[in-house]
């Protein structure tokens, strides 16, 4: 005789297995297909690593990879310089602005990137006038793009430490504001900084909208361009960028787990934050 509870547990397990297998297939097949497609031989048979070799040898592609990596680095620097002092300062001295800063930081989630691009073109005319037409000027737009995600990471990190007490202690020992931020706060939010940096890098490496519509060549623009002439190279470059991004984001989710305090991680877009109800049991 099977009891209703066992039947329910068995039904749940069956449901779980079916769901995981079917959806697992849906998510894995495109990835496996990329491997197959990018290594296919020219005559329709056999395997070749040509498309993967192009990642290192094609001058246009390598230049784009370098541009995107430089952009990622500059965006991280810009994001940290803009966000960390502001967020620390708000917590310590300008508490009334806390909600406003949060609202502003999360705003780019609701204003579509495409809309910002449409409006930012005239602004970029000025940027080009002052700084020249290098693709690296995209950094300015990218800092805005990564703002919500970086904010979430840093906010979680700062919430986990008692910032006021730490800074008061440091200042009573004779530290100035710069020292407080650089020598006391930053070392205590390293993992939050790392997650903010990872998510920023992942977003910048995958960015296409701004670059393509403002006519700069970054990695994604060049991948899309190659699609018309040599789709295999596009696919191999996509897969490479993808794997790199996966690794970064997986590291990020691991970092998120190790952190105490708020459970929101940077990769949750506008998550419904409900503290998990604790189950009590006798």
């Amino acid at each position, binding site marked *: 005789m099977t*009891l*209703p*509870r*066992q039947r329910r547990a068995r039904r749940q397990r069956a449901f779980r297995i079916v769901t995981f297998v079917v959806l697992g297939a849906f998510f894995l097949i495109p990835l496996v297909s990329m491997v197959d497609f990018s290594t296919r031989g020219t005559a329709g048979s056999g395997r070749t690593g040509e498309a993967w070799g192009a990642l290192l040898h094609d001058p246009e592609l390598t230049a784009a990879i370098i541009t995107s990596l430089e952009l990622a680095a500059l965006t991280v620097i810009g994001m940290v310089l803009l966000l960390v002092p502001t967020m620390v300062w708000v917590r310590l001295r300008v508490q009334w602005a806390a909600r406003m800063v949060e609202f502003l930081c999360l705003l780019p989630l609701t204003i579509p990137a495409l809309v910002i691009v449409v409006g930012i073109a005239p602004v970029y005319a000025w940027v080009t006038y002052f700084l020249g037409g290098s693709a690296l000027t995209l950094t300015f737009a990218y800092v805005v793009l990564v703002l919500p995600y970086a904010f979430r990471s840093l906010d979680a990190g700062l919430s986990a430490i008692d910032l006021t007490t730490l800074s008061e202690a440091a200042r009573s020992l004779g530290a100035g504001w710069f020292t407080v931020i650089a020598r006391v706060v930053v070392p205590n939010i390293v993992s939050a900084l790392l997650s903010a940096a990872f998510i920023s890098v992942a977003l910048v490496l995958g960015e296409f909208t701004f670059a393509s519509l403002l006519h700069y060549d970054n990695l994604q623009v060049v991948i899309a361009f190659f699609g018309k002439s040599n789709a295999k190279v596009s696919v191999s470059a996509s897969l490479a960028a993808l794997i790199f991004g996966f690794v970064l984001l997986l590291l990020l989710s691991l970092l998120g787990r190790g952190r105490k305090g708020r459970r929101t991680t940077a990769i949750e877009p506008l998550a419904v934050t409900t503290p998990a*109800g604790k189950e*009590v*049991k*006798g």
Partner: protein
Amino acid sequence: MSASALETREGVEVRLEGLHREFSGVRALDGLDLTLRPGELVALLGPSGCGKTTALRLVAGLDDPDSGRVVVGDRDVTHVPANRRDMGMVFQAYSLFPHLTAQQNVEFGLKLRRVDRSKRAGRARQMLELVGLASQADRFASQLSGGQQQRVALARALAIQPAVLLLDEPLSALDAKVRAQLRDEIRRVQLEVGTTTLFVTHDQEEALSISDRVGVMNQGRLEQLAPPEELYTAPSTAFVAAFVGLMNRIPCRVEAGRASVLGATVRVTDRSVTSGEGIAMVRPEQLVVEASDAGSAEVLQVSFLGSVTHVRVRTADGHELLSQANGAEAARLTVHTPVRVRLVADQLLVSSD
């Protein structure tokens, strides 16, 4: 109060017979037998992990026993699913449905039983009055205090006129003052409706103060089932003796069923140790301390607890004992006062370990 017009249901007998339950190799219940008389409130008391909550969940049908039976009245309900068992249950906390008001929560079970709307509302109102919350009927759980939530949960459980009322540590999430108040409230309501009730708790004060009988559980078994006074004054096992109330464990010699403890010789209640070495179980109030220059013991600590004072002393042979003193005597005791310790008891429980 319209509680006088309350429709109640005759209490029924509940029998737990040889219940066994294992959780991945750990024995939560190891042959539990327990009979609740009709209308009786029985508390299951024990340390965490003793199986008391498991027992309750088996009665509720929220878990299935590996073997054994649960019988309610004449009906074997062992394999009846929880939703057809007709049991009212109050959980530890957070069990109110958050999208419903207090009134709607209480009506929930009646609605499932297709009680018509006006009768349902009337009955729910009556139950809320019974627990003193009629004025909060339209509030949501998030607008009620912890104690109020538990009252609503009690009203909800009783609204369906359950055969049995099950209370799963309903007070443990509340603060001390509310806890004592609600405890007495639960007892008042239970006596009023006369429903057979099983109450699980780890708090002995709770168990002793409102139950008809208390069952002390240990390692999945029932150690003793007795009225509160009997449990305290005549514990049948060393575990019960140590678990209920405070207890001194004093090494002693037993000969021919009599033990010599602190210079006195008293009858041994338990037959397990008839001669040789044993440990006598002595309550603090069975030890009287008196200041005396000739005394061989010394006061270590005096704790004033209001109605009584606890005095910790060290005897000449190095044992620490906890004794109780009344106001007048206690005032004369300070640390290092030499004292005499006297045993006032006719009989004692002596354990072999």
